């Protein structure tokens, strides 16, 4: 059994319903449902539910307060290598793009870590491009050993690994896994990932399960907004998250709603996703899965991020740079994966949260 089986059952269903008529009464019932069904989740994502965003927001806020309190966890991404063997048309690290390629040495990782840790952040997300040759698991492990001295929680966002490889990194001190499917639609996925190891849809789809089975404490999934109909993609993200929650009750399952940003290369996305759409996606996910961790990154501009705080998100990145070695420019920084929109410092983000009556949580785990 894998989420793939559930995906196949869903193939071809509900999509037309999502964009057309769902009776207002069905949406209203879904908003207040104690344990919404997938059908009710679809109703919350439907075009018709856009007229109910305010009531959805009230419900989502109450649920988030109950389960997470007035707190937002902060983390920061750390790009250690941008070498990549893939040709994802929407990504700046695309192997076909002629950009500065860089991989940090452990000493350079330490410099970046010292800088990031000096801001007070204790949760770090380590990112690489997808190149087993240039950033093998042994290299990631080496970097993790350096980072252990600076951070109390280390997550990875790297190419999909085998379960044993996840286990090996957990032993080194990794406790969280982020891996986005990018797009759940298998045919579109094949078109967007024509060459390279990433073309293996199923190996990527099952990665969150392998990570959970290996003992990750938290697993984050998501799809890249702008590649396909967002309603369908969020619906499948929600089903995936629910599947993981049910199957791995001791793992903290999270989701993100990354929206496509400008990057190196020409692809600008097939589908426009508006701020209203982002808000509806967050509210629907929160009501469907009250305990789901929800992150929003610096891909979004500061004003939108600020407004999303009380609506259901639980995690934000801060002080981000998407280029390798960007904080200390040790030996020159590599090209960025995408352009960030919120360039505020960690201190500024913390001040904003406090201003809004939210406690920035910098540390929420430790190696034990």
């Amino acid at each position, binding site marked *: 059994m894998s989420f793939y089986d559930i995906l196949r059952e869903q193939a071809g269903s509900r999509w037309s319903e999502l964009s057309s008529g769902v009776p207002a009464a069905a949406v209203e019932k879904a908003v207040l449902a104690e344990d919404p069904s997938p059908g009710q989740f679809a109703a919350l994502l439907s075009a018709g539910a856009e007229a109910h965003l305010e009531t959805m927001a009230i419900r989502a806020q109450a649920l988030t307060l109950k389960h997470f*309190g007035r*707190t937002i966890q902060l983390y920061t991404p750390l790009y250690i290598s941008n070498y990549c063997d893939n040709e994802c048309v929407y990504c700046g690290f695309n192997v076909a793009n002629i950009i500065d390629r860089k991989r940090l040495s452990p000493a350079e990782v330490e410099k970046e870590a010292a800088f990031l840790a000096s801001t007070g952040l*204790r949760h770090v997300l380590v990112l690489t491009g997808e190149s087993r040759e240039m950033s093998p698991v042994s290299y990631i492990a080496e970097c993790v050993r350096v980072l252990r001295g600076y951070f109390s929680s280390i997550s990875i966002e790297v190419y999909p690994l085998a379960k044993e490889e996840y286990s090996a990194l957990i032993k080194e001190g990794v406790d969280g896994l982020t891996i986005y499917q990018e797009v759940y639609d298998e045919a579109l996925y094949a078109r967007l990932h024509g060459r390279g190891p990433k073309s293996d849809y199923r190996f990527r789809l099952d990665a969150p399960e392998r990570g959970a089975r290996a003992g990750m404490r938290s697993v984050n999934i998501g799809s890249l907004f702008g590649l396909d109909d967002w309603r369908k993609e969020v619906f499948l993200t929600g089903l995936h998250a629910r599947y993981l929650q049910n199957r791995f*009750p001791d793992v903290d399952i999270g989701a993100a709603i990354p929206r496509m940003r400008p990057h190196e290369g020409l692809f600008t996305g097939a589908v426009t996703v508006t701020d209203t759409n982002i808000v509806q996606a967050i509210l629907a996910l929160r009501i469907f899965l009250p305990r789901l961790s929800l992150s929003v990154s610096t891909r979004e501009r500061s004003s939108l991020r600020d407004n999303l705080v009380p609506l259901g998100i639980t995690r934000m990145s801060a002080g981000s740079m998407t280029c390798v070695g960007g904080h200390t420019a040790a030996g020159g920084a590599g090209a960025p994966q995408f352009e960030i929109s919120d360039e505020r410092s960690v201190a500024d983000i913390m001040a904003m949260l406090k201003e809004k009556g939210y406690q920035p949580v*910098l*540390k*929420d785990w430790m190696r*034990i």
Partner: protein
Amino acid sequence: MTDTLEIGGRKIVNRLFIGTGKFASYPVMRRALEESRAEVVTVALRRVDSSSGTENILDYVPKGCIVMPNTSGARNADEAVRIARLARASGSTEWIKIEVIQDNKYLLPDNLETVKATEILAKEGFVVLPYMSPDLSMARRLVDAGAAAVMPLGSPIGSNRGVKTRELIEILVREIKIPVIVDAGLGAPSDACECMQFGCSAVLVNTAIAIAEDPAGMAKAFSDAVAAGRLAYRSGLPSAGTGASASSPLTGFLHEDSHRQ
């Protein structure tokens, strides 16, 4: 004589224990602790950052409070034990609230692993207060394992549903000879009062205080409700079922008759 609760050699007057998660800020939390005059607070070790340069939650706990670290995040006995040892190594008290949770959806505790952790830590000299699902057999095992109190849940953490498990907790109150402290799920001061009225030794509240519009006001309300419930219990609340006796025994005449004979 002051009515005190004795745990781990400490005498506690205020029977409202407070959890420190979910507050909008540390200063807001401190005001709530001060306003309620709470004497026991629980802090998740996972949230404590003693490294220099950042705010430390412990600096916002009023002096004199007993800080009871908890093992939030532990998924099994082994992790709970390791977190407890880290807590002790970081210089806090010997008190530890054990939370072993393998279920992130309802945050219901794993009683079996909790018993294992309690046994190990009590032997190591910790004052162990285990969070548990109210179950008499498990509570007895916790007593045998050396727990200083048992902390059954009123309803799932953060649910604010009140004392849904009352029947089961009442059994613990009757049968278990160590303090029974209701932890989790209490949504309103009246819920806390109810627990005290039927004989619980204390209650622990977090969410209902932390996410109230005025946490300090709500903390005081809970504190007063706990005191009122306790006084009602000690004063022989008829429905409490324990400690109550009619001022003139209703069947006293039978004994009078026997005397006459």
